């Protein structure tokens, strides 16, 4: 544009700083010489600059909200009072930390923290001064002293502290691969430091790894707690605005905040708040992560975040460890192996940590010293004071209710003890054993119900199974034993229902193209449901409806799994056209689940009242429905999509998307959305893969989800990825025949024919009547593999004939049959098959097969050549090439090795010179 030598921007920016108009004009003519147009233009720019200040600028209202944006101006070299800044050594949510040199009254190096904008400086300093006396009295080797505080020239508060050249304790422990024991020893020192401060009346309020540094002195690790007094001085009222920066990021570290700090009027914070934060720190040292992960807290809305901290029971460290994806590396950082580490943490350490993390501060350790003492008891193999939380809690509740009775009882028991002396010891031993077994079961049951609440069914089942040995002894309290048995039975039922639900997906899936296969799969799912309920004592079809419903309602702990299964059962049963049986089941479901919204939905579905169903998808209270309901609503629409012709795919999808938004961690929602998008194909596949990966993450033991993830990669032609997924899926369920078929397809596309054959054969062996795809694909390998000696035309023909018999309306199968016949030199039969295939048309619902039509034409060309119709052959060949041209943008057409090979074969036979491409 501007070809002049004048740097317009530089001149403009220099000129706009010159306030005096005459001086500015002088500068312009000096800079631009006699280039009058340039001078005019820059003058115009300067005028706009002055007159149009607000152009493109943020609205004033926004500015008002974001207080002070200017960054901290202090730099190395800046002198603040007696301190000279040397270099920046850290930056956190609250401020920037410099290493600084103090010159008076003594020369030393200190740490100087300048508090970031957004706080009332006078207030901060006033608060600090109020505590200054107390702070000065702290003297402990594990506490870095706060030496001074003041205000910088730019009006920011600053704090001066003893300089600690250390790293956060968690990082130190991980870097050094410290085993648990060494970590505990280090942590005990931290507790003692905090205890010292507490005795001087100082609460830290912000204990977290960044404030507990470890430095090495003489090769000895010395923890130092820093920032005492700073958090209190800089504390702000907890509101949404103080918690989030204008970037929406959470200010500070909420993971260590105690439940009482997470209240909006956090008036009475006491030393026990520090105990909680110490508990979180210990949790992290042991389990590698905080009880509530930062991501989860910061992702949550403000109120939700506070609620989690205040109310939610965190998992025990050992549970957290065993559910962690990174357990091997966590263990390695602790110089241990996964199994050993879990064992080491399970039990006493769990109890100690959880006692420090009690929501009710009265139930935490009452001092840091006692916290430390319990850890030391653990280290010395003495019995710890902390115990399984539930037992203690239950006892306290009991005691509260029966205070006087208990006091008398205790006196009586004491008297009896004295009287009976040693005679009773046998009884006591047995009682102690009973109490222990009961305690074990209670701990397990508590964990089970936590997992159930999160719908982590298979984890819950695995945990419940841990109760089996204890149950076998028969020593626990009968009431607890009964509860444990019930939990096991419930979870076993859930396992079978969820498996059946996953299987029944194939009833509606694309692998079901004929009504016969669909009803066969439906019958299978239907029987599996019936059996699962029957074995759980709920024989839906022979019990009176009311009785059946009541038995279902009684299992209320697992209703989130049972009700959706019943809905699905109704759906698969209705495929069978046994209306009486379906009505009966609907009746049971109606009684078992009186929720009016779902009733409306089910009734509409039963009446085939599509408009009501459609109205429901836009109803205002849709978002209030649980995930399972939303998932079912989508399924209902999807299964009957022909009833909603005016609905675009996107709109059906919207129901799921809204559900996923609301329940981002729900397995079924993610799974459905993933399936939906992956089979929409094209540009949707990648997004679908994302949701499917979420589903796999939520439920890694789901063979179907893993297999569907593989299907996503298959559509992208990322066969290696796909194969890895299929193999994993098969590890989870070796009899997953759908997955075996998919695996075969990916292997065959990669040219791994032997492996592909094995996969297809296994799929066919498992379900000879349903695996038409596998039949056809396997047939193609046998008739078409590159090495002609390895081909097996007979077997190919057999397989293709079976595929055609099972599914006569699918063109792929006819293609396979045609190729097999061609290989057998049965020209006429081959011709019939290809004609039939072309007549049926290509089924584009299977992205990886979309070159079928070209194959038909190439083979038809060869067939005609063999029959002596050379002109006809050439015509067919041209059709094929034309088809390839028209579809050349499709990935498959460009990349498929088989198609290229077939084309070359046709060209050779027809004596067509190689095309130049």
């Amino acid at each position, binding site marked *: 544009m501007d070809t002049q030598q004048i740097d317009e*921007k530089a001149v403009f920016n220099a000129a706009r700083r010159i306030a005096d108009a005459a001086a500015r004009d002088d500068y312009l003519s000096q800079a631009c010489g006699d280039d009058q147009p340039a001078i005019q233009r820059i003058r*115009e*720019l300067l005028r706009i600059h002055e007159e*149009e200040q607000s152009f493109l600028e943020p609205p004033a209202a926004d500015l008002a909200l974001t207080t002070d944006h200017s960054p901290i101006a202090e730099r190395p070299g800046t002198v603040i009072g007696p301190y000279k800044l040397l270099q920046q050594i850290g930056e956190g949510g609250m401020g920037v930390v410099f290493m600084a040199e103090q010159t008076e009254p003594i020369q030393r190096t200190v740490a100087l923290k300048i508090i970031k904008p957004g706080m009332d400086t006078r207030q901060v300093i006033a608060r600090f001064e109020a505590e200054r006396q107390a702070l000065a009295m702290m003297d402990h080797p594990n506490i870095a002293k706060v030496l001074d505080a003041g205000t910088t020239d730019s009006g920011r508060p600053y704090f001066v502290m003893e300089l600690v050249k250390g790293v956060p304790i968690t990082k130190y422990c991980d870097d050094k691969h410290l085993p648990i024991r060494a970590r505990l020893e280090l942590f005990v020192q931290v507790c003692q430091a905090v205890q010292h401060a507490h005795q001087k009346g100082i609460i830290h309020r912000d204990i977290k790894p960044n404030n507990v540094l470890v430095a090495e002195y003489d090769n000895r690790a010395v923890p130092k707690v820093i920032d005492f007094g700073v958090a209190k001085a800089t504390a702000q009222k907890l509101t949404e605005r103080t918690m989030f920066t204008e970037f929406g990021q959470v200010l500070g570290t909420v993971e260590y905040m105690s439940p009482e700090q997470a209240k909006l009027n956090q008036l009475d914070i006491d030393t026990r708040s520090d105990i909680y934060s110490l508990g979180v720190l210990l949790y992290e040292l042991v389990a590698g992560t905080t009880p509530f992960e*930062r991501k989860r807290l910061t992702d949550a809305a403000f109120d939700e975040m506070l609620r989690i901290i205040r109310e939610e029971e965190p998992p025990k460290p050992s549970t957290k460890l065993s559910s962690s994806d990174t357990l091997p590396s966590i263990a390695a950082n602790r110089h241990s192996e996964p199994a050993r580490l879990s064992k080491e943490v399970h039990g006493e350490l769990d109890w100690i940590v959880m006692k420090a993390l009690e929501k009710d501060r009265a139930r935490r350790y009452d001092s840091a010293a006692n916290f430390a003492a319990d850890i030391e008891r653990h280290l010395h193999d003495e019995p710890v004071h902390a115990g399984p939380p539930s037992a203690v809690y239950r006892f306290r509740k009991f005691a509260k209710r029966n205070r006087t009775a208990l006091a008398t009882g205790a006196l009586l028991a004491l008297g009896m003890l004295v009287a009976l002396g040693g005679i009773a010891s046998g009884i006591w031993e047995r009682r102690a054993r009973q109490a222990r077994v009961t305690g074990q079961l209670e701990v397990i049951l508590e964990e089970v119900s936590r997992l159930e609440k999160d719908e982590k069914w298979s984890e819950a089942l695995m945990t419940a199974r841990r109760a089996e040995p204890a149950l076998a002894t028969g020593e626990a309290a009968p009431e607890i034993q009964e509860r444990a048995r019930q939990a096991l039975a419930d979870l076993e039922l859930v396992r079978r229902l969820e498996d059946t639900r996953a299987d029944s997906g194939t009833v509606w899936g694309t692998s079901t193209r004929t009504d016969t296969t669909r009803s066969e799969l439906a019958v299978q799912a239907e029987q599996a449901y019936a059996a699962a309920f029957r074995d759980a004592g709920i024989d839906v079809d022979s019990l009176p409806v009311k009785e059946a419903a009541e038995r279902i309602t009684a299992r209320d702990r697992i209703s989130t799994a049972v009700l959706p299964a019943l809905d699905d059962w109704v759906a698969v049963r209705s495929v069978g056209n046994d209306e009486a049986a379906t009505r009966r089941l609907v009746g049971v479901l109606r009684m078992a689940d009186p929720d009016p919204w779902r009733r409306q939905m089910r009734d509409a579905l039963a009446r085939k009242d599509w408009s009501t169903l459609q109205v429901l998808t836009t109803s205002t209270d849709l978002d209030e429905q649980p995930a399972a309901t939303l998932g079912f609503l989508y399924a209902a629409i999807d299964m009957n999509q022909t009833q909603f012709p005016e609905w675009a795919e996107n709109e059906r999808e919207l129901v799921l*998307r*809204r559900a996923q938004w609301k329940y981002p961690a729900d397995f079924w929602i993610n799974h459905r959305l993933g399936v939906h998008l992956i089979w929409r194909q094209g540009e949707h596949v990648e997004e679908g893969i994302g949701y499917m990966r979420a589903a796999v993450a939520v439920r890694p033991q789901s063979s179907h989800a893993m297999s569907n993830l593989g299907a996503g990669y298959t559509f992208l032609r990322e066969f290696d990825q796909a194969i890895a997924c299929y193999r994993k899926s098969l590890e989870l369920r070796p009899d997953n025949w759908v997955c075996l078929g998919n695996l075969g397809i990916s292997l065959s596309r990669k040219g791994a024919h032997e492996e592909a054959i094995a996969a297809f054969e296994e799929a066919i062996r498992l379900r000879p009547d349903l695996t038409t795809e596998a039949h056809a694909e396997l047939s193609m390998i046998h008739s078409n593999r590159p090495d002609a000696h390895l081909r097996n035309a007979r077997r190919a023909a057999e397989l293709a004939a079976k595929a055609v018999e099972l599914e006569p309306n699918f063109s792929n199968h006819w293609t396979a049959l045609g190729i097999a016949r061609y290989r057998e030199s049965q020209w006429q039969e081959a011709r019939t098959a290809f004609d039939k295939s072309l007549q049926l048309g290509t089924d584009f619902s299977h992205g990886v097969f979309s070159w079928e039509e070209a194959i038909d034409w190439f083979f038809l060309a060869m067939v005609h050549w063999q029959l002596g119709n050379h002109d006809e052959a050439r015509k067919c060949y041209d059709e094929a090439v034309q088809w390839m041209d028209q579809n050349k943008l499709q990935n498959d057409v460009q990349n498929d090795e088989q198609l290229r090979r077939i084309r070359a074969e046709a060209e050779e036979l027809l004596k067509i010179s190689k095309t130049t491409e």
Partner: protein
Amino acid sequence: MNDVTRILNAVEQGDAQAAERLLPLVYDELRTLAAHKLAQEKPGQTLQATALVHEAYLRLVDVDTVQHWNSRGHFFAAAAEAMRRILVDEARHKRSQRRGGNYQRIELSAVEPAVGVNQLDILALDEALHQLTALDPRAAELVKLRFFAGLTVSEAAKVLAVSIATAENDWAYAKSWLKLQLSTNGGELS
């Protein structure tokens, strides 16, 4: 680790192609987010692009893993570009609606640019911005970051790896330049 976090890490490690994969992801997220928000709002409400961009950031980026300012910079650069496209698409869409037709999509016209402007012709601004890009790509990028992603001057300076003073100079110049260009191009002024 989610897709965006992974891509940001790849960018961090010098994978130049990774940055290209970022844009469509961020674009989709912003659109979905906006659609979702609008579905919840009362009719007639508007959304702040800044808020959308930052919410997208929190949703897409694993803040624990991605801590480098560089990565955040890449994200916001992509977000600014995505937001520009969304707003420009919307403006075009509005214009094309006059022709009628049965064009079904989620209406996003209620998304406001990050920086408040009354009655500014987005398409005209975008055209001027294109012209600025040819002349001074850095200044144009700065405008995108400020205007479409709502970054402050100092945040944008970090993204562009220039000093704050330089960013302030660029900003002052770009504003005047664009305003002048808008009047030269014949767009409606003031």
